[in-house]
């Protein structure tokens, strides 16, 4: 009924290879964009922006980045927190060293710096894979956090080792610092996320993405048919770290405003984003969104229900919340090991035939 392909003719290659080949899907996509850009900014307030929307958008960027590495290229990484820290400290150094350049470019440059660091830590992936690679990236996580704690140059020699985002504007509107409105924060992150998602989606549909997937599915076979493992694996690390660096830069500059490397970018951040990718669905852009939404919104939602509506003590609520989120993760993964994206795919298949399944 909804996903009817009958009558939806493609008369050119261009039409045939568009991102959303089914008309309903395409309309839904435009509708989501219209709501996100046109309607949400009118109603967003400080609470919604800072507690829900901005973290969701930023984690979605990070999840897309990690999904490229883990989901598409099959290289397990536990260094996400460290790479986010590179993005954050890069943008901090750039913001304080070149105050006249637009913050948007700083964020992009921070992404490129993180990409370079990611390539360096991706080098071991040429020799090792699987769990061993995970351990090598874990080293990146600890090394980077240690580095940013140890070398005072990274935090401009401040007494506390904290980095604070100075105020910066885009088109005269504050996007970092205390005077930033909820709408500006939201819009800035949304624009970046939209660009990132478009790039990621199209990269994964093209030659580059197919190479990644070939390496993921069987690296020796891929090498035999002419996929160069060196460039493929390193490009996966570079692109993934680029996105994660952007996420880290936004996380520090726009969302938190002040950060401390061990606390904001510790190992638990690496795990959180890996869980987002796994729960959302490996090898799916939509899955990255779904996973980020699940792990950002659910705790806030539960907290509001348990403490706000039911009036439970905060400590009991915090413990129950952990148990509920953990339980749901286990339940989800038993019911659908391929994540929320697979649930969506199955639902779509059903809707295609509905209401006449036979």
């Amino acid at each position, binding site marked *: 009924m909804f996903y009817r392909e009958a009558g939806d003719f493609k008369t050119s290659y261009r039409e045939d290879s568009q991102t959303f080949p089914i008309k309903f899907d395409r309309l839904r996509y435009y509708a989501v964009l219209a709501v996100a850009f046109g309607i949400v900014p009118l109603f967003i307030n400080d609470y919604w922006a*800072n507690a829900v929307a901005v973290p969701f958008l930023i984690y979605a960027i990070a999840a897309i980045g990690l999904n490229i590495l883990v989901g598409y290229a099959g290289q397990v990484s536990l260094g996400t927190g460290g790479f986010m820290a590179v993005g954050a400290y890069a943008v901090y150094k750039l913001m304080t060293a070149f105050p006249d350049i637009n913050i948007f470019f700083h964020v992009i440059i921070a992404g490129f710096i993180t990409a370079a660091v990611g390539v360096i830590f991706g080098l071991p992936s040429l020799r090792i894979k699987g769990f061993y690679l995970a351990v090598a990236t874990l080293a990146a996580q600890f090394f980077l956090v240690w580095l940013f704690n140890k070398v005072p140059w990274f935090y401009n020699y401040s007494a*506390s080792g904290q980095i604070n985002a100075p105020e910066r504007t885009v088109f005269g509107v504050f996007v970092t610092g205390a005077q930033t409105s909820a709408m500006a924060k939201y819009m800035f992150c949304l624009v970046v996320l939209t660009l990132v998602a478009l790039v990621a989606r199209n990269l994964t549909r093209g030659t580059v993405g197919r190479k990644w997937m070939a390496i993921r599915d069987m690296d020796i076979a891929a090498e035999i048919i002419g996929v160069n493992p060196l460039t493929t694996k390193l490009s996966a690390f570079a692109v993934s770290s680029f996105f994660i660096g952007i996420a880290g830069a936004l996380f520090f500059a726009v969302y938190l405003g*002040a950060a401390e490397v061990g*606390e*904001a970018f510790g190992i638990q951040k690496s795990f959180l984003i890996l869980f987002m990718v796994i729960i959302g669905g490996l090898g799916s852009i939509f899955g990255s969104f779904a996973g980020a939404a699940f792990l950002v919104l659910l705790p806030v939602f539960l907290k509001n229900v348990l*403490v*706000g*509506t039911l009036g439970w003590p*905060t400590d009991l609520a*915090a413990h129950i919340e952990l148990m509920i989120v953990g339980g749901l993760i286990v339940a989800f993964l038993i019911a659908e090991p391929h994540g929320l994206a697979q649930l969506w795919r199955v639902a779509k298949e059903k809707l295609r035939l509905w209401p006449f399944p036979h």
Partner: protein
Amino acid sequence: MKKTLTALVAAAMTLTTAPAFAELVVPNLSYRTGPYAANGIPYADGFNDYFTLLNERDGGIGGEMVATPECETAYNTEKGVECYESTKGEGALAYNPLSTGITYQLIPKVTADGITLYTPGYGRTSAANGKVFKWVFNFPANYWDGASVAIKHIIDQEGGDISGKKIALVYHNSAYGKEPIRTLEELAKKHGFELSTLPVDHPGQEQKSQWLQIRRDKPDYVLMWGWGVMNQVAIQEAVNIRFPMDHFIGVWWSGSENDVAPAGDKASGYKALSFHGTGMDYPVYADLKQYVVDAGKASGAGDQVGTMLYSRGMYAAMIISEAIRKAQEMAGKSNVNAAEVRDGFENLDLTEARLEELGLPNFAQPIKASCENHGGPGSAKVFQWDAGAKKWNEASDWIESDKDVLNPLIEEDSAAFASENNITDQCN
């Protein structure tokens, strides 16, 4: 599916963020879970109980009831931001997040929103300079005062000369733990002692290598800037290497009953600073027992009354309530807003006589705040743990910090903040 979920979330959130209808709102951003819970719980309980006492005994402050909506931060900055945003709409008058990390997040936010941030003994040290930090107050003492007081106590113990002595700092590797380093370096230059720093990473359960180093280097004194589970582990490790406990001095955040108890009798003699008294020997506890504990209105499990951090939570609540009282007096009305409460903080004049009226004689140092001075007297006492009696005994009188060293550092750090944020002198 996604849309219905979003709608559901939206419905639940709008339902739950409805304001609580009390006249004066002082949110309590607490943590009762995670590796810092052992220290977060007594503080939060003391904070809540003091306001409950005011409500039950006096009918609030100036006739207005006080609400302390609690929000769990787990000492995590992201949750702290969420808590701040979710409570500020309820008409919050002052925040006391008990976390240096969250304080750094909130300084720009409270400045933009016009809400007081009160960080007794923690937070950004240079906030003591009211010319730059209009909305932040950190009296009666800050980390740099603590560092200086600890060194002065060591000088006293050594009979006036500590040149050539070795002093090690074991610190939580975060903004909180790094704060005293610069001051200690200056003091090392002035007094000629040798400083070594040993960072401990969050959460602080792994300290074998640090204490091995201490065992090898044999410093004369060890200072500690620890919090949460790190304190307990450090004190246990010090016991294990038989470090003389009276040469081991913690800042005020490393000196609660919960920190020394796990090490048992061997922890006897451990020293910690405090900027207020502790124990049950204050008249206020009679009222507290009558109106709060026996009435079944105590916060949490009610088993922390009279402990060191409980006293500190009570101290913070007492200062905030006195600032609100001052604000009511100045504004000539009881229903004060956040800006008036800030003025109350700035004109706070806490005298010994007033402390006695409150049932807390000699509990703390008098404070006279001003537009320039948001930092208070900066003095502290040294307490020593007696494991047999399970209590903290005073080991010194009030020790004043070395302002000659601290003031230039505060000027320098706040000037850096002022130039980063284009702040001009707010007192002229």
